[in-house]
């Protein structure tokens, strides 16, 4: 999730980020007060937006989300007095007519805008698609997917199960269920055993068979066959255009 995050390769990607954890991880300090920020938003629009732009991202006045003064403020102790005094020499008027609470509310609104930009744990996928064509998706499905899947069989009502477009797209591209796989292990003495692969790496292979017993072999002494259920999906990955994926997503979202 972060530029420097190493991702030990064998660990699966975590989806479903925890906002609280990301706030702490990023060292963002105090969590802004949502109610005060909401009050501050209206005050900002009335008093500040004309110069500092929508969402405080700058206009004829500076961008306040990236302002050093704002970023150094904790809870209005810098921004409050600044608003009261203004900076007349550089065209920033005084807002002495506002109450202390109103000035603090404006500060809180700015802190919320910073939080929304900086805390990527709060980012959300769009619930609505902006592209894709149902009919083209239907055609792609017929040409590339229908030999294995059926919209009235295994994919019946799939659009209800994955109603969020990004979740649907991920399911289309790589519908893998993470977790141990079924495998057949041919043992050193030539016996073929089928079960669940509990552990499998370059060194050890552990298979659990239906009676619940597990056996471990050095990997280089056995042959492990794992059915490749995703062969068709793997073959499509290098072929998809983004339009193909968007069309398919649109189409499958209609299956509710």
């Amino acid at each position: 999730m972060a530029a420097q995050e190493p991702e030990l390769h064998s660990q699966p990607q975590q989806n479903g980020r925890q906002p609280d954890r990301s706030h702490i991880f990023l060292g963002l300090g105090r969590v802004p007060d949502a109610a005060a920020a909401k009050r501050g938003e209206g005050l900002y629009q009335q008093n500040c937006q004309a110069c500092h732009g929508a969402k405080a991202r700058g206009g004829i006045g500076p961008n306040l989300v990236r302002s050093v003064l704002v970023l150094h403020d904790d809870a209005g102790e810098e921004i409050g007095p600044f608003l009261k005094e203004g900076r007349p020499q550089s065209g920033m008027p005084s807002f002495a007519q506002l109450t202390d609470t109103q000035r603090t509310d404006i500060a809180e609104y700015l802190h919320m805008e910073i939080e929304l930009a900086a805390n990527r744990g709060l980012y959300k996928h769009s619930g609505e698609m902006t592209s894709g064509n149902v009919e083209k998706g239907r055609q792609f499905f017929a040409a590339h997917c229908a030999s294995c899947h059926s919209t009235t069989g295994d994919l019946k009502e799939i659009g209800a199960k994955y109603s969020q477009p990004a979740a649907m797209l991920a399911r289309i591209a790589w519908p893998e269920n993470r977790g141990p796989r079924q495998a057949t292990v041919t043992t050193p003495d030539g016996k073929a055993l089928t079960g669940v692969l509990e552990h499998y790496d370059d060194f050890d292979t552990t298979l659990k068979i239906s009676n619940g017993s597990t056996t471990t072999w050095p990997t280089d002494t056995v042959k492990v066959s794992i059915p490749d259920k995703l062969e068709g999906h793997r073959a499509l990955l290098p072929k998809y255009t983004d339009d193909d994926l968007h069309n398919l997503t649109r189409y499958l979202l209609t299956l509710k």
Partner: protein
Amino acid sequence: MKRPFFTKFAQLAAVAVLSATASIAQQAPPPSGLNPTALELFHQPADTWPTYNGDYSGRRFSAIRQITQQNITDLKIKWKYTITGIPPLRGSGPLIIKSTPLMVHGVLYFTIPDHVFAVDARTGKEKWRFDFEDHGGHVLGQRGVGMYGKWIYFLTPDGWFISLDSETGKERWRKKVADEKLQYFTTMAAVIVKNHVIIGVGGDAMDVAGYLESRDPDTGEMQWRWWSEPQKMGDPGSETWPNEQSMRHGGGMTWLPGTYDPELNLIYWGTGNTNPVFAGQGRKGANLYTDSIVALNPDTGKMVWYFQGSPHDTHDWDNVETPVLFDMEIDGKPRKLLAQAARCGYFFVLDRTNGKYLVSKPFTKTANWSKGIDERGQPIPDPDKEPKVDGSMVDIASNGATNWPPPSYSPQTKLFYVNATEGYSVAYLYDTSPQPEGYGGGSSGAFDTHSSLIALDVLTGDVRWKHIPKGRGAEGGGMSGGILTTAAGLLFTGDSDRLAAFDATAGKILWSQKLDHHVSNGPSTSVLDNKQNIIVGAGDTLYALTLDGK
């Protein structure tokens, strides 16, 4: 060159070098510590691992050859040191050693965020520990310390540059070098070049500008600062930005140690991703000098050349991966070269005197985000592969084709080795405004993703061999950590929950040792009491391995 794996001569020579330099400086040699002359381009003193990469080249190739392909089965754990008494770090979970320890006079110096450890390399017993309490910044990694004489240099998550006494762990001074309130943070291992301590910064949550600094080893005062972006419109490179506002908030962090060629007197550094990270609509253009390899004069901080690995990056593809230096004869001519396996999925080989490219080629899949390369060998980004509201799929894995764990180059095999991730991911645009901020999007999906250890031919960029580990996350398989190669034809790296040794020529596993966690740093090696030690970090534990474990 045939050289006995270690000799009394080598040790005496190291002492002689130390004394010679001391007499030149006309002062008594320090009672302990590391003389900066121990730092060389292509040579590591046998009894020392003096810097993050072992020498200035970043090759992580050691001439020590006591451990061989024949006797490797006798390689055993001599001791392990597990960090105790430190709770999980804020928001970042279990303690993980990502630093490469320095080995100086029988002591290993290594770090995790907020903490420095000095451990006796003979016994694995803690000599001292330095604990710091941060007031912000990210705690996701710490690459290690730099050393100059008896002094250690350490960077904290919240931008403090601290000098410690290597004998006692006592603080000498601290200087503020980065503002954590602006979301800068500091994780790198300082690089010592002559009388310069070179330090870089991280931080891409709030659209700040990257920089690299040189600091005085005695006082900690700044000698120069190089910014990752031009400072005003009209300066060279500013034509790759639409306006000064976007340029001065363009990112380009310098968070991994660079390399140095003393003869050319150039440091080579990678710069990180552009900001806003995934939303490029407010910064049309190539966005120099983010996502680049830059060659700087270490005395002045002036840039001599650049090569941009990921122009107009919209995928968080920090181009900070180690720029590895090596020499080679090509068509009968000796060449000074530099190679990098970049996070964007390209392998670059450049002439390090001028930045001209010899190789520029994808090393995992096709790098479908690019439309080929320009006349300088730099990839040309395809605008249609920028993040989209509905997603845009690239054939690069979600966290990049590779990342910070150190690669290796062996002059014996003439191969460049990198732990890579192969697969597909989808980049989404969340912030569609004309002036996006922060990340503004994200990457997700792990489609047909697996790790691999890849050996690349530096003349062609072709994959000479590739090891794809069996199994995958849920079952236990996967490559991890950095790579070390040795003159005995060995390659050490993490595979699954083990430290493994491969035949560097053929890519076959020759030996492995189970550890308590995945390998989490770059393995290193040095000679102690006539025994070759392999030092490796895995999670919260540091291991020393020797033949017979003695």
